[in-house]
């Protein structure tokens, strides 16, 4: 009995050594498969429980997030309701003032989407051709806009309209003039193309209050372009000798090379 531990040790170590040294690959593999089969469900169950707990944790977190988001959205809705009420009241006030002053009301515009199929091969900044024409209700002098990275920007107007295609005179074309105004100061001027990516804001008075970063929008004068369409931002105010008018450089909020789909505004 005294030697029992040593006998057991020898026996077990002997088996271990046999297992190590003998090539028992096929038998060991069979044993592994058997034990895996016996023990595999247990870890799976344990891992499932853990996964459940993890899912529960994630659910609690997402529930809290949704609750917070819900509260934030409710606050936002309340704010927007207030803004909507103010907007309605201003709209009504504006309509009343317009009618009492006998001013013509605002015209509502519809949008027609068109795909650019070609551009002026000789000058990239002059015209582009779209796949919609008279058959689609396109007429000359319709404003053409583009959506680019959540920004709307005017790109020109329709010039020559065929049955199935139309040419768009781009803002960058040197013959293009668009009446615009400074959004901040409401000062009006004309924007003209120079066959470059940037535009020139012309006919500003020498003492006009204009700063870099000011947004320029269409003024609505001339009735071709509806008021309020963004055209670009002031990016340079060069020093000039002209004592009558000031010229300012405008950078459109779009890339002229990324015009794929355009939108035409029709009354």
């Amino acid at each position, binding site marked *: 009995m005294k030697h029992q531990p040593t006998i057991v040790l020898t026996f*077990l170590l002997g088996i*271990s050594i046999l*297992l*190590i040294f003998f090539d028992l690959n096929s038998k*060991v593999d069979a044993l592994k498969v058997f034990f895996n089969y016996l023990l595999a469900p247990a*870890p799976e169950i344990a891992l499932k429980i853990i996964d459940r707990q993890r899912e529960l944790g994630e659910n609690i977190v997402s529930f809290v997030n949704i609750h917070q988001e819900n509260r934030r959205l409710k606050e936002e809705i309340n704010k927007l309701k207030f803004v909507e009420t103010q907007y309605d009241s201003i709209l009504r006030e504006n309509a009343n003032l317009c009618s009492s002053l006998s001013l013509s009301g605002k015209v509502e515009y519809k949008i027609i989407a068109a795909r650019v199929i070609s551009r002026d091969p000789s000058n990239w900044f002059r015209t582009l051709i779209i796949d919609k024409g008279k058959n689609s209700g396109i007429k000359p002098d319709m404003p053409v806009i583009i959506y680019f990275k959540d920004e709307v920007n005017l790109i020109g107007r329709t010039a020559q309209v065929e049955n199935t295609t139309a040419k768009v005179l781009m803002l960058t074309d040197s013959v293009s003039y668009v009446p615009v105004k400074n959004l901040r100061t409401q000062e009006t001027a004309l924007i003209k193309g120079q066959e470059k990516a940037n535009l020139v804001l012309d006919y500003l008075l020498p003492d006009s209050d204009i700063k870099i970063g000011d947004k320029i929008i269409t003024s609505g004068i001339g009735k071709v372009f509806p008021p309020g369409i963004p055209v670009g931002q002031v990016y340079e105010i060069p020093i000039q000798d002209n004592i009558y008018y000031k010229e300012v450089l405008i950078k459109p909020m779009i890339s002229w090379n990324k015009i794929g789909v355009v939108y035409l505004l029709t009354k």
Partner: protein
Amino acid sequence: MIYLFFIFFTLVSTLIIQSIFSMYFPLFGTVPELVLISVVYFSLKEGVVFGEFYGFVAGLILDIFSLQIFGLRAFLFTFIGFSVGKYSHKLDESKIKVQVLINSIVLIACILIARFVSLIFIPYSTALNITGLFWTVIYSCIIVPFEFTILEFWVKKIKKWSGKANLI
């Protein structure tokens, strides 16, 4: 017999918990050697023969689930069961110092011997990762007192249950 069944159940549960640790709670890529800790516990608690058998079975099961040399862990764990079991009457396993010290020595010896044997059998295997060894020992030493306490509680329970079951 019922007690042995419970012990086997404990071993399998420890193995499952160790695999859960390896999946979800690794510390710098290392895992506490819960099965080895249980071998040390049962060797200290139940003596040499029990420790040897428990070590052999535990090592064999670990060998089945690992891609290392088959039988190596069975060999090492049997030897650990024997060595630790021999001192079971001289050591007070309820002291945390003893638990941590014994486990650290056993773990370092086990890893180094396993590495050495691996180098003999698989010459192209990579060199010993000292940082990995360090973190495995640290991680295991942190877990040791908890595992000993849980096992102590559990063994008391299963002894009670198996005693009652034997009466029935």
